[in-house]
């Protein structure tokens, strides 16, 4: 099974080729501010449908890794994060570039992106079979509690306001009710429209919220669109780090990788938070915290190791429980389901070959990233100069094509516009959209398991708190919300 999985990737020229394509496109999307890793994966999702499952998912993995890794190029050369996960790379990467060490900063970023990716891949390979064997024992009670736990964690961690996060998640759940209900197949909330029989297509929802909303917003910022920023000169020599420095950074590297991994496993928090957390952990643990922000390699290493380690982390709950650990993982979940692969505890039993193929694809994609980003840096920097007023409309056309291609249905094209407008409205109300998408995805799972559980227990709610694993998740969910509320109150008092 293991060998079959590995060979399915290595012996397939199509698979190797589309992974390479994914990495290249990913780096381009990651390095251009305004286009994100999420957008890259969302836009290519419909194309992956036409490929066979292993190649299709390898393409998405390449895009994911490329997208997260490409962000450091503009973070260092333009001091603008190319993708949200490289926000914290700017803190020290920017000052390093100012000092004329841009090449060193990029070299280090690429190397540590690779290391972060590989460390999290190792964790993924060892943790997921173990987790899958535990989740085998889960019943409807545990699944419902986990869904609830995931939703509250996202709501409380993303954005400033817990209430806004909750509203966003609940709205996502509500819109997912449209169409055929789980268990009994009852048709609900479709307002007699045949287009809504199966609800809103997940691809259309994702394209709408994560691409169309951003494109509409460029209309509001059109006056600043042509400000290119100055691309700083750089010269690459090796990876910019000596063996001595590497040894000195070992603790920082491992700590950042673990933080990235942990944040990745927690649902919906994502790369930007993990980079920021690893950065502040590196600063707190450092002998010279005052030097952070002045352009030291410690900061760049923490940020880039952590954001790439998030990738493997996010895939752990995705593959073993069907719970996406980040927005990109949510998109990949859509891709897996369309290829007929149901993530969950049985994935190693039912799709074992496929699982090992995914692991191999991740390894291949990380290697590609290391080579392509390093050797092709010159071209990626050139592409950063493409004028936005030309690029963004073309991306919009690709969005429309992607939406139409999922079901050969023009209703999905209308949906991306509607969800783009919804995303715009939420942004205007200062409500983040990440909880929305996780709510949308987990709604069906939460409902199905709650109803199954209540049928088994004959309407008794007690098993949710008497079963230990279920109780633990519910407890953590409650504690996380309470802690954030207390923390917010404390910070409000401090500022008042």
């Amino acid at each position, binding site marked *: 099974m293991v060998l079959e999985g590995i060979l399915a990737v290595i012996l397939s020229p199509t698979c190797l080729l589309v992974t390479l394509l994914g990495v290249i496109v990913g780096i381009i999307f990651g390095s251009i501010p305004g286009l994100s890793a999420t957008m890259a994966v969302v836009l290519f999702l*419909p*194309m992956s449908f*036409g490929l066979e499952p292993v190649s299709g998912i390898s393409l998405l993995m390449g895009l994911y890794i490329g997208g997260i890794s490409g962000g450091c190029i503009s973070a260092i050369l333009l001091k603008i994060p190319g993708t949200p996960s490289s926000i914290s790379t700017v803190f020290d990467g920017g000052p390093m570039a100012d000092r004329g060490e841009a090449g060193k900063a990029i070299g280090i970023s690429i190397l540590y992106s690779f290391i972060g990716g590989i460390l999290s891949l190792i964790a993924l390979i060892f943790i997921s079979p173990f987790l899958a064997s535990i989740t085998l024992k889960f019943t409807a009670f545990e699944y419902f509690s986990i869904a609830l736990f995931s939703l509250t964690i996202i709501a409380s961690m993303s954005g400033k306001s817990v*209430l*806004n996060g*909750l*509203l966003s998640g*609940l*709205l996502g*759940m*509500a819109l997912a*009710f449209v169409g055929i*209900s789980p*268990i*009994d197949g*009852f048709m*609900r*909330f479709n307002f007699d429209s045949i287009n809504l029989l199966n609800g809103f297509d997940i691809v259309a929802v994702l394209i709408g919220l994560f691409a169309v909303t951003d*494109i*509409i*917003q*460029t*209309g*509001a*910022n*059109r*006056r600043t*669109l*042509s400000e290119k920023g100055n691309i700083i000169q750089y010269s690459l020599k090796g990876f910019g780090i000596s063996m001595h420095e590497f040894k000195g950074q070992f603790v920082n590297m491992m700590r950042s990788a673990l933080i990235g991994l942990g944040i990745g496993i927690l649902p919906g928090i994502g790369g930007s938070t993990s980079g920021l957390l690893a950065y502040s952990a590196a600063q707190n643990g450092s002998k010279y915290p005052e030097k952070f922000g002045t352009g030291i390699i410690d900061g760049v290493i923490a940020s880039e190791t952590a954001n790439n380690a998030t990738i493997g982390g996010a895939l752990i709950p995705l593959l073993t429980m069907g719970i996406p650990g980040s927005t990109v993982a949510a998109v990949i979940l859509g891709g897996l389901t369309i290829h007929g692969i149901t993530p969950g505890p049985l994935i190693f039993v039912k799709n074992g070959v496929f699982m090992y193929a995914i692991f191999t694809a991740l390894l291949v994609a990380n290697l590609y990233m290391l080579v392509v980003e390093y050797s092709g840096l010159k071209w990626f920097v050139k592409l950063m100069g493409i*004028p936005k*007023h*030309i690029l*963004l*409309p*073309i991306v*919009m*056309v*690709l969005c*429309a*094509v992607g939406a*139409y*291609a999922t079901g*050969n249905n*023009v209703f999905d*094209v*209308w949906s*991306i*516009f509607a969800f783009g407008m919804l995303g715009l409205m939420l942004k*205007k*109300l*200062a409500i983040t959209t990440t909880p929305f998408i996780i709510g949308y995805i987990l*709604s069906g799972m939460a*409902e199905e398991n*709650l*109803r199954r559980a*209540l*049928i088994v227990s*004959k*309407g008794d709610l007690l098993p949710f708190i008497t079963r230990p694993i279920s109780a633990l998740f519910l407890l953590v969910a409650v504690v996380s919300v309470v802690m954030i509320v207390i923390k917010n109150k404390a910070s409000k008092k401090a500022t*008042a």
Partner: protein
Amino acid sequence: MSEKRRDLIGSIVFLVFGIFLFAISFTVKTIIENDVGPAFMPKVVAVAIMIVSVSKLVIALKNHSAEYTAIKKSKDDKMGSLLTILNLGAYVILFEPLGFIISSILFLVLQMIILSDKVNFKPIKFVIISIISTVAIYFLFVYAFNLMLPEGLLNII
């Protein structure tokens, strides 16, 4: 718009949505015995939305701090947003009737004009880029990825 006003509008919009969801949930019937039914979860979510939006409303009403009530001028280019939304709306509506190629070229040219400023306003360049990229995308998807795209008006020719 002040932050207070924004939060008040937000909580009322969600409250109305919560009430609406709760109301339409009564049109959904339970089929299986012992099952809470397909209306149960929507009702739970509707009630949760109502509770959260009312809490948000109360918190917003109670907060009178200067920073919270200060009116902040939006830096957004309103004309730019409006034109983008209209152009996008027209594009998705005309996508099928006009067909992919014609509707996309029109959308691209107009959107590039909307987003450009005096310095980079080059209509002929926009038209050329729009035609080339649309045709390239069409051939890539239809012939390389085997996907269907609406032909629209070009079908008649």
